[in-house]
């Protein structure tokens, strides 16, 4: 294995200006927000086309070096741009491959290269008159469709499932071969169904490239939603931690019938307030203790939010036309007398709720990034289990999770993103990465949480780079063997991101 020879050949092919080994670059590309430390790569390369990516993969096979692809590189809380291990050559696809290749306003899809960010696509759709919207996350606006979809990321509107609402890929396999998936796989150059039909002849290979390391995706079709003329949100604040049980029971029927077209964001106090202000309690305990219940109550009052606040939205022809739907939801959620209704206009005055509205509206926003300063020192990791939409189960999980955070002196910050049958529980672990003790507690908390949830039959939706091996080890041996066998078939020399999601 010779990285030097690889880089030499790569510079010959790409041009030396597209191979970066400057010290400051390598330091930055190794940085992340995890407790386990940075992972400095050997080089950063900027391919400009699918052909160049394929050529680099073939060179990597020749020289037996490991490549780590990243697209927009905003994988915050999950590893940022860090590879599973130090010393790999990062392919920063986003730098040069950042074109919106196609927007079809009749069929409602866009085809994008890896560097196209949520913000770029949203801007372009707006420029074209705003007839269409793309689903966006409430995370970094400069994150993008390809990296996010491949990591099974999600938004909050009807097209929230970013992998599910993608259609048709172009992929460079670990061998250097290039394939098109779905209807793109026919040997022709008029691929009219590539980005409109997911399932035609043959096996559905697309899923192989999500949360894996079998290929490098260089093009993806993403479906667009007609932008409604008006979007009207509604919000309900509930006073007690245990109200989660009632909330989940209330959300389920509204989603089962799809009466509410968006997902429900069921966020706890510290998730919402944490995106607005730093912890007022951190300094007092030096970060060794969780914030007290009294301090939480005070924050809830100050910000006009509940122990849990539920947000959703309707899409319609005008704000007024949605009045009957809003009334019905208000009646439904306020029936027990526990909820306080927060109407759309009032919510727009509260940054954390305005952020929810933006996420229902395909509008990228920075607001939620404020969560990263809840504690000082920049540590941030996401634990992402889920619960069936059963109130008692959800509440049991809530108590379980909260206790583990408290045992480790951390602050419970959770948003349950609820659909009809399932809610993803986005647990934020904020910690001071400059404090070794807090790092150790963050790591211990993550593992304890994962163990406790696995014991109840629950895996995570996405794994931060520090714990991908740990999660893979929890799966049944035959599943792990199947993953490894696919790796050997598509990437026999293991050149693409060895270890990503625990696959070697």
């Amino acid at each position, binding site marked *: 294995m010779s990285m030097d020879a690889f880089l030499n050949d790569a510079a010959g092919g790409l041009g030396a200006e597209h191979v970066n080994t400057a010290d400051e670059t390598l*330091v930055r590309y190794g940085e992340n927000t995890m407790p386990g430390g940075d992972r400095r790569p050997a080089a950063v390369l900027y391919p400009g086309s699918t052909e160049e990516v394929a050529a680099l993969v073939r060179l990597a096979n020749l020289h037996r070096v490991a490549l780590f692809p990243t697209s927009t*590189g905003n994988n915050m809380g999950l590893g940022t741009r860090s590879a599973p291990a130090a010393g790999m050559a990062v392919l920063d696809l986003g730098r040069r491959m950042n074109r919106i290749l196609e927007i079809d306003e009749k069929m409602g899809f866009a085809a994008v290269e890896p560097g196209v960010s949520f913000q*770029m696509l949203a801007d372009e759709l707006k420029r074209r008159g705003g007839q269409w919207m793309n689903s966006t996350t409430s995370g*970094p606006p400069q994150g993008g469709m390809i990296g996010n979809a491949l990591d099974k990321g999600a938004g909050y509107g009807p097209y929230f499932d970013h992998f599910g609402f993608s259609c048709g890929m172009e992929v460079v396999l670990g061998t250097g071969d290039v394939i098109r998936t779905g209807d793109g796989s026919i040997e022709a150059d008029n691929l009219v169904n590539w980005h409109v039909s997911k399932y035609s002849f043959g096996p559905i290979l697309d899923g192989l490239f999500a949360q894996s390391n079998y290929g490098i995706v260089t093009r993806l079709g993403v479906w667009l939603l007609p932008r409604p003329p008006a979007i009207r949100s509604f919000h309900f604040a509930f006073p007690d931690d245990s109200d989660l049980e009632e909330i989940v029971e209330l959300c389920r029927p509204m989603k089962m019938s799809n009466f509410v077209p968006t997902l429900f964001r069921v966020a706890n106090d510290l998730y919402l307030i944490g995106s607005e202000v730093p912890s007022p309690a951190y300094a007092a305990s030096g970060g060794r203790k969780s914030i007290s219940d009294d301090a939480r109550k005070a924050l809830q009052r100050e910000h006009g939010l509940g122990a849990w606040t539920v947000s959703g939205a309707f899409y319609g*022809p005008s704000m007024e036309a949605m009045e009957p739907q809003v009334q019905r939801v208000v009646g439904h959620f306020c029936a027990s007398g526990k909820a306080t209704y927060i109407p759309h206009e009032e919510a727009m005055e509260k940054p954390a709720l305005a952020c929810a509205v933006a996420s229902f509206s395909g509008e990228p926003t920075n607001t939620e990034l404020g969560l990263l300063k809840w504690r000082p020192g*920049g540590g941030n990791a996401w634990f992402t289990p889920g619960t069936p939409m059963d109130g008692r189960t959800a509440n049991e999980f809530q108590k379980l999770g909260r206790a583990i955070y408290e045992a480790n002196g951390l602050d419970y910050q959770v948003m349950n993103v609820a659909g009809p049958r399932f809610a993803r529980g986005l647990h934020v672990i904020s910690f001071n990465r400059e404090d070794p003790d807090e790092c150790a507690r963050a790591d211990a908390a993550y593992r304890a949480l994962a163990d406790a949830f696995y014991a109840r039959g629950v895996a995570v939706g996405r794994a931060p780079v520090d714990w991908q091996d740990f999660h893979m080890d929890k799966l049944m041996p035959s599943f792990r063997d199947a993953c490894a066998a696919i790796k050997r078939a598509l990437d026999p020399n293991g050149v693409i991101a060895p270890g990503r999601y625990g696959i070697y």
Partner: protein
Amino acid sequence: MKTAFTAAQLAEPEIAAADGILRTCVHYGFCTAVCPTYVLTRDENEAPRGRIDLIRAMLERGGRPDAKTVGHIDSCLSCNACMTTCAVDVDYLHLADIARAYIEENYRRPLSDQFVRRLVSRTVTDPARFARMTALARLARPVRALLPGRLRTLVDLAPAGLPPRRDFAGVHPAEGARRMRVALLQGCVQQALAPEINAATVRLLTRHGIEVVVPPEAGCCGAFTLHMGKADMARAAAARNVDAWHAELDVGGLDAVIVNASGCGTVVKDYARLLAEDPARREKAAAVAAIARDVTELLAPDDLKLPETAVPLTVAYHDACSLQHAQKIRGRPRALLRAAGFAVRDVPEGHFCCGSAGAYNMLQPEMAEALGRRKATHIESTGAAAAAAGNLGCLAQLGRFTGLPMLHTVELLDWATGGPRPDALRDVALPEPVARKQTVAPTGAPGAPPPAPPPDAPSDASSGGSTGAAIW
């Protein structure tokens, strides 16, 4: 980020302030993706995070800064896109100001560099001198090829001619009942280059019942020199303005100090900090800063006195960095333009700087030109018939790269509420006027301008705002 300043270093207030800011940066790097110089170069040292590291090293080391560090700080636009994106609110703006002042004091620039910087800082901030230098540049144009590169840039950037000088000093009474009394900053270069902006501002405000005073002693706000590291010159300018406005405040009372160049507005709003070490003025500066407003903050869409008909011209609205990133004003100018009957288009890559950035386009012409062309292409891609912005610097910079008429927001608002048709629109074929009630058609009607968002709502689409009726 950890820092390693000695106790002696920390005894200096500037170093202590820098230390406080540096410690907040945790290297997330959200800022890099939105930094224009990074996006164009992909050099980590051309990104905010890289610059923050370089500033830390420079200040910790003390003594003379190295040329590499100075180069990377000089190439920063001060556009503040990084501050809008930073998750932990690192105060890059003030860190960069501290670094620039440090460089100014401790670094010896090459003579040609010193000469150009001195020329720029003295010329741009003084309307009379600016007029003389413009005339000189005109004479030099035929021999520009013989000039050294930096001077050639200045000659190229100088306007072909200047409009007749107008001075707005004095009191401009409100029409009808007086609702408010405000002081207007008439500025330095704007006064020479585009007096029509101040004229439109005075007409617009007085028409809406606002008395406008322009104290003759007030002048350049200090922004140019501040961003060049010439903090003493900037403080002197600020002190003069604070004295003049505070005297007005004392005598006739002021509801606001109005700034119609957002680059200046950002600095005026920060006068309390700039003059914090000036005991005689500290409090006065805070009082002035507290009432400083961009001109669009003063008028609400509902306040506009609109005639029966509107000209539904399509206008691309460009967010000046100083308005969107520093003052966080995005929704209000759009809402005002829409209320006035214009069809407003957003410009793609709106968070990006146009490359004007104060004196930047004179000092860093290559980067400025690349950014100017990029922004102009985006503006043209909207298909709008004209473009508007709230900052003269952007208008002048973009005017070099696009043939589209560039107007200040107040010129359009003045026109729509009864003022003269702006000169920039002289040769533009205008759409037929329409009865006003049609221009405020229900949300989403085809062809109608999108409805006004609530002022500065975080999201422009959150309460509607599409033209999607056709498919809904």
